[in-house]
Each structure stands twice: as structure tokens, then as C-alpha cells.
């Protein structure tokens, strides 16, 4: 018994020594210092954009369908071709995630066919107002400049394929022209 006690204190003592004198600090001085999160960390949701700034989300509601805690509510709407929100005909006009219901399982991210909803590194979610926990679309959307990639969404606004795009399309059946 005595032996176990000595062993245990010894271990604790070693860590104290390492931390104080060998610079092997385990904790960080939050909030001045913040820890880097692993790539697949499932924090607060983000809605991503395409390179040209259009929203990736097309309001298909697959994320809402898969969500085990029914935390996602969305209402889709038809795009105005002159002033589009997303590629294709459809976009999410209302997109809300109830973060108190969310269990951060990441299913929404997995279900999304457009790579629109992803779970970001943000974990600071506390608030003293309940309404703050219903994340609205504009709060989750990435800034325009963070957009990436070109869209492969079928787009009826873009009319017949032109001869140039014909070649392109032969190489990539999804390539579309505008």
C-alpha cells in the first residue's frame, strides 16, 4: 500500500517537474492561448461557398432529414436567375440549427451532397440567452473570400451547350457553361 502511494505521488511529482522546469506544459492558458483543433473536429457548423461567392447549400434538406435530433430547420426557395444565391434553381432561404438540440454527431456534414454544411473548429458556444443557440444562416455562412471550387450542380438556367463547351463536356460530362 505504501509502495502504491509512493508510486502515485512520484508520477504526479514528475509531471509537476516536467511542466515547471522542462517546458512540457500540458494545459494552455485559455483564453489567451487557444489550442489548435484537429482537422475533423466537430464544432459549430459552417456553411461554405463556391469560389465565385455563391452559396453551396441548395436547400435540399437532406441534412435536416438525417439529423438525429431534428436540430435543423430550413425553408428553400427558388433562385432569381438575375441575382442568384446558389447555383441551380434552389437555395435555402431560412437555415437554422438549434445548437442546444445538436449532438455534434456530424451526420449533416456527411449527408450534404454539396459540401455545404461542415462542422468547424469553433467550440465556444456558451451564451446566457437561449435565442443565441439557434444559429441562423448568416451566422454560419463563410465570408465570400473563403469560397473555393467550381460548381458541378446541374443548372437549368444555363441554356444549350455551345460547341466549345461540347469538347469540354466530352472530357467532363458535368462541365457546364454560362
Amino acid at each position: 500500500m505504501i509502495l502504491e502511494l509512493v508510486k502515485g505521488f512520484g508520477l504526479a511529482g514528475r509531471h509537476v517537474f516536467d511542466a515547471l522546469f522542462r517546458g512540457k506544459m500540458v494545459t494552455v492558458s485559455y483564453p489567451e492561448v487557444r489550442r489548435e483543433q484537429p482537422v475533423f473536429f466537430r464544432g459549430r457548423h459552417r456553411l461554405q461557398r463556391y469560389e465565385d461567392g455563391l452559396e453551396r447549400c441548395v436547400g435540399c434538406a437532406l441534412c435536416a432529414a438525417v439529423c438525429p435530433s431534428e436540430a435543423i430547420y430550413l425553408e428553400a426557395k427558388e433562385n432569381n436567375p438575375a441575382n442568384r444565391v446558389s447555383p441551380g434553381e434552389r437555395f435555402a432561404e431560412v437555415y437554422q440549427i438549434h445548437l442546444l438540440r445538436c449532438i455534434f454527431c456530424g451526420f449533416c456534414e456527411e449527408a450534404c451532397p454539396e459540401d455545404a454544411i461542415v462542422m468547424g473548429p469553433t467550440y465556444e458556444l456558451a451564451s446566457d440567452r437561449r435565442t443565441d443557440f439557434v444559429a441562423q444562416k448568416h451566422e454560419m455562412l463563410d465570408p465570400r473570400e473563403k469560397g473555393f471550387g467550381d460548381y458541378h450542380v446541374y443548372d437549368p438556367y444555363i441554356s444549350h451547350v455551345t460547341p466549345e463547351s461540347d469538347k469540354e463536356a466530352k472530357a467532363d460530362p458535368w462541365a457546364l457553361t454560362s
Partner: protein
Amino acid sequence: MAQVTKGPACGIGATIGYGAPAGKVGRALEGVPEDQLFTMTLNGREVKARKGETIMEVCHREDTYVPHYCWHPSLSIAGNCRLCLVEVEKVPKPIIACQTQVSPGMVVKSASEQAKTAQEWMMEFLLVNHPLDCPICDRGGECQLQRYSMEYGTSHSRMADKKRKYVKPQADPLIDIERNRCIMCTRCVRFCDEVGGDHVMGVFARGNDNYIGTFGQGPVSNIFSGNVIDLCPVGCLTSKPFRFKARVWELTQTQTTCTQCSSGCKVTSWTRNGRLYRTTPPSRQRHDHFTINEDTEEFICNQGRFGADFSAHDSRRGESLVRRADRLEPAPFGDAVARAGKALREVVERHGGESVAILLSPRATNEEGLLARKLARDVVGTWSVDWRANQQSVEAANAVSAALRVADGDLESEPDVVVIVNGDIAHQSPVLALRIQELGRRHLKKIVMLGHYHDPYLAGHAAMSFHNAPGRTAEILAQLAGVLAGEASVADLASSLGRTEEDVRELVDTIKSAQSGLLVQSLQDFDGRYAPAEVPAAGALRAALGEGWGWLPVTGERNAVGLNALGCEPGEHGIGARGLLDAIGDGRIKAVVAIGADAIDPLGNEELLAGALSNLDAFVLADSFDSPYSRLATVFLGMAGNLETDGTAFDIEGNIALVKAGVDPVGDSRQGWRILTELGRALGRADFGADSIEDVWTQVRAELAADSDATLAALELEGGTNAAQFVVQRPAGGARNRAPEHNPGNYRTDGLHLRSAAFEAPKAGTAPSSSDPASAADGFLLTWGPHVSGRGYLQNRASIAEMLLPKPFLEVHPADAAAIGVKTNQFAVLHVNGLRTKVGIKVGRGPARGTVYMSAGVYGPFDPSSNAGPVEVRIEPLDELVPDQGEALIAAESAPESH
């Protein structure tokens, strides 16, 4: 792939290249003569089949699912999607199940390796040009292509070339067409050809380039066009009003019935968060999935589909109002009811019970009807309770009641001959017309048309048609009855009809030789102007027709049959809806209780009604909307709206069905039966009414059919989601639920009793005298009829009401059109009653020569109902075409005639 290349040239008006219409699918073999039956093998099982059936039909009956796109039980066989390929022994290659007839000893394997491979390859083929944008596509979640891809397809495609892409047309205001998703099954084309009757959709171009579209880029113009949305197995045709509003899996389905006309169609209401998103034909469980209209034969009209959301209108009012010192103030429901009871009691004490009238909307449920009648007869003590405000006169209303009371026909029995009198049925009860048409089209029954207007929708399927001038129908019917009874000569009838004796003899022979038949009579045609004379005439004809025949008088009101059977009518002692304004004027009526403002709305224009209603001592209105009437009420009781009410209602054929609440009543509003119960209790009868809808139903049941012990839950089951039951059977159970027609004295209470309900001919002379159309030199006789979308009060509150409302047009007989020089889509000025109205012309064979038909529900600035006899009009052609063919027929201007 054998695609139908039906170009514009061969498409119009014909169904060239299609097979025979499918029979009633999966029909049971009971009663089929032995020599028509044989055995065959299906998936290793020995099954019985009937001569002439297709493999698909046998599979249907045997509950073996064969994937299919182009085949639909209500439409002809096209055989062009090739997805139903099955293996048949001794046939080297797979063949299609939908078009191949079975033969004795045939061995069919629907899930063998060969069949499966064939189906898999077909799936890959159909997906060659498919955009696969399911996340955006509104069909996602109920798409047959998605489902089959999972069940019968492969997960990869070998297609490396660019996909074919079409421009998107903007043809129809209600249907979104996205051609790239089309798999060319031609269901929509066949629907418009065969059921819709406007032949407006077609397959254009050839081969790989073919696409679906409408002729002239116009809209799909028939009143059933919305059904192509459900028929389309993919996301090519989707609903515009519902577009992107919600995903189908997010919606709650309620199996209920449409409350807008007497067809009483079974529908599914799709709701979310207390809001109605869409209405469709019933969704049914079929094998492992839910489907609308995949294998069922139920169609609904556009009014029922797109126009049922009036409860969400801005003028919706949930709370109750009470008048205090000339101002209406919101009040809790209990207070308002107490106040209403007090006001009514005062009137009864001062002027007697007979000074109170209770009026019901014709869409009131049986439960509301029964309680309203009991409230009138047992509590208030008045005869005056009525639902018939839509009828244009007391005589017309009485004729309608008399006809409904003795009606004994329905379509369920599939009569050999259907005789249609004044067939303006498609406008007032669309799906009834659709089903009559189906009898002619699919079951090859004979349709005969008589009367002054022949609905073009049905006329196309009529074997015979005999026109007469407006006002002469009664005479013709009497003569026909005489001929059948051997009392009149065929020659006389022929001369009255202006036809050859041979023609008429054929008519008489057809009727005489029929084993069974049905006399369908439109009662509200021409605003029921002639009903008082035509009802007795049709009754006499019905008697002369004898055994095997039935009589189906048609009016558009939703629960006309039920409210009539429950005695919600004043009889000869009371004051009916049509006599109400006079009775208020001369002080016989001092208080009015209206259950639904559409119970009084048709009685006159707003001014007239407001004038009358303000003379009342008490006006209690239970309704769902703010309206000119609610502002006049002494007490306004917030009533649950459409889809917020439980109960039962009859369709015009006498089938009872459940009307089911899908959402909670808005605000503080209550269902009608509860309002009536509370009113009765406020009037001092603590035992009045019931505390649950089941209890009211028990009372209704006792009144209608004492031997039935069906619960509401049982009714629900009958109208539920059991596919097997509904594939072979029309919804709503059949004639066994018909109300007992000959049931006088049913509603005898407190010493009051209604006259015997036996049929009695109204006095002669109520109908205008006949006039010879030939004598109206350049004048024409005008006819019209009500329209399901044009009824006003409720229909105007639908979110897309103006799209559903019929555009006014004037239908002119081709010979007359040639004589005065007008063409379809040309404008003309219609001179009527000293007014003129500009209206688009449609040339058609609906009206007789010398008669013109004004599209229903839209009278322009004049009110033809103020005239008693036939209305004479003059047509003056204008050198101007109706702009934009699709948008045809707009009444542009009207002004009083200067001279």
C-alpha cells in the same frame, strides 16, 4: 429504346399508336365464366388468369411488383419505357409485361436473372441523359426513378458523353416543366389526350432529341391538369405553387376528403406546422412504399388540388367578436357564445321561435347539419333552417331537394347506358364528370346527351347527342318518357328534336335494350332556372325507364345529399335561404344564425345583404373570415376552417366519407359541431349536442341508417391507406352507405313534422315558356352554369385563386360562328340586358344552334340571374384577337350600352 415519336402532326386529337385502354386493374376473378379462365405460372407459382389480361394485370392481382413507368391503370398502354421487361419461357428475349397478353400455360419470371439484367440495363439507359440533380429536384423523396435506381439499377454509369440539355419552357402557371429529367414515358401526354381531353401535351422532335412540351407553348388547359404532376414518375413535371416549399418527407399526411364540390374526392392533405402545403389524390401504401397515383385510379381537379388553402388567407379570424355599443370587440369564445344565446333568447321570447332562421353552408358536415337542424327544431322551435343559398330561387331549391330525396343512381354499378341531361357537369363537379367519361372511355359504356348544353368534356365520348333550345328540355324528357311508355310517337319526338326518325329510334332502342342505365341530370345548369320543370320531367322519365335504371341529379354543393337527408330544409312551413331577404324585409325573421358566411353570401350582392342584415335584432355568424358580414354580426363566433374540421359528408352519389382535421383550428376558433353544441346549451338545453365528434356521429348514424354501427375510426380505415382495397375499388365504399332516401318523419320533433318526402311535381308554370331559337333573328339565347372555382366566398381566398378562376369566354356553335363571322380567340361584344361586355369567343359544340354558352361563374358586369326566362343576347364581332393564345379569353372592358 422504342420511344414514342409522336410529333405535332400526328398528335392532335388522336391517340395514334397506343394500345387498348387498360381494363380495371387487378380485378378479382370472381364471377368470370370458367371458359375465360386458365392457369399459368408466375414466379414458380400456379395462378389463375383471364383471357385478354396482360402479364402486368395478373402481377397486380397476385401482388407481384414489376417495375414500370409508362403503364398506368387509368391510361392506355404505351409500352415505351421498357422497364417492365420480364422473362417468359420459350421466348428468347425478355418481353414487356404491360402489353403482353397472357396465354394458358405461360411461364412468367419477373425476377429471374434475365429479367433483372434487362431491368438494370433499362435503368442505365433511362439515366443516360438524366441530370441527377436530386438535391434540387422537387420530386426528390417521392421519385420513382430514385427508387428504381436503388432497387433495380446499378450504382454506376458508362455514359461518358455530354448530357443532352433543353431550354426550360415557361408554359404553364401551375406546372413546372423541366424537360431534362423526362424519361419519355408519355403518361402526361396520354393523360391530356384521354382524361383531360385537351390534347395539349405532346412529344416533340425525334429520337434522341425528343422532348415533352405543349402545343403552341401554351398552358395545359384542362381542369385536371394538376394530375400530370403526380403521374410524372420523375421530376419533369412538378407543382409550381408547391415548388421548393418543403420536402415531402417533412410533411404530415392527412387522409381526408375535398370540401369544395359534390364529387367529394378522397384527398391527402400535406401539412407542416399547421399549414397546408399541398393537396393530392390519396397517398397509398403500395408494397414497400407510399405513392400518389402510381397504381391508383384516383384523379382530382385543379380546384381541389391548388385551391384548398383558403383557411390561410389574410382575412382569417380565429377569435370571436361581440358587439358592444356599436363596436365589435374581441371576446373569449365562452363569453361570445353566452352573448349569442342571450340575444337569440330575447328574440325568441319577444317574437317567437319562428322568427329565427338558421342557415348552413352547403359544405357543412353531417354533424353540423344534424345539430343545426336539432337546434332549430328542438331548441329554438323554428322550421327555418336551410343550406340552399346557392339555388337561384325558392322553386329551384325545392326542385333540387325533391330530386335529391328520391335520387337512386350512382356510377359504382357501371351502368350500360348513361343518359346525361343538360350536361354541364365538368364545371360544377369535375371529378364526377371524369368518372362518367371513364365509363365511356375505359368501360365502353354508351353515353347519350340530351338537353340544351352538352359539356364538351363529356360530349367527346358521347355515342349520341341530341340538342334542344334552353327551356325545352322538360318537354323533350316528357316526350321521351312517353315514347318509352308507348304513349307517344317517335316521329313527334324526332320533330321536337329536329332530327331524323332513325336517329331518334336509335336513341330509344339504345335506352330500351340496356340492362342497366343511369339518368344524370345537372340541376344547376343555367342557374337552375329550368329545374322546377325539368326535375318532375326527369322523375317521370326515370319512372318510365323502370328496373335497372337509376337517377343521379347533380348539384355542385359539397354535402347536398347529406344535408338534404338530414332534413336541414324548411319544408313548406319555414323560410328558406331564398326567401330570407323578403322575410327579413317584412319582419317575419328577426334573427339569423349563419354557420359559415357562404350560407348567406350567394343570396345577393353585399349592399343588399348588408341592408337586410342590419335590420335584424340578432345576427349570429360562425365563420372563419373577416368579411362584410362579420362586420354586421351581433356576435361573431370563430369557426374552424377547411382542414380544421372533423366530420362526415356525402358525395353526390350518396357515399359517405370522412372529413378529417389535419391541423389545429387557428386561434380560439372551434369546430362547427362544437359551436352548435355550445349555442344549444347557451339557449338553455344543458343536454344539447355532444361532447365529442364520435358522439355526434352516433346521432347522425342513428338518423341515417339505424342498422349501421360504423365508428368514425372504421370510416377512416375504409378511406385509409390500404392499397389493395383501393386499386380495385373506388374510394368511399359504395352504395351501401347511401342515405335512406325515403325516410319521412325522420326529423319529427316537438310536434313539428316535415311533409312526406315523397316526390311531388312542382306546380306547372314556374318554368319559362319555350321559345324557338330560330325566331331570334340575329339574337342568341344565353346559357351558363356554376363553376367549382367561381363560387366566390371561399374560392376567392385561395392563394392562387385568380389562376384557377375560369376566364370568361363565350361558346358559340360552329354553324352560328360561321354565320356571324367569329372565330375562336376573337373578341366580340356581347349585348345583354342593355349592357355590353367584351368577351373572347370559343367555337364549340357545347350549346345548340341558336344558343351560346357563357363560361360559368363569370358573368361580367351583368347579372343574368335577375331574369326569369331565357336571356337573349346579341353578338357583335370585333376585329381583335385575344392576345397570347395561351392567356386566352380575358374579359377586357364593359360599359352600359349608350342607346
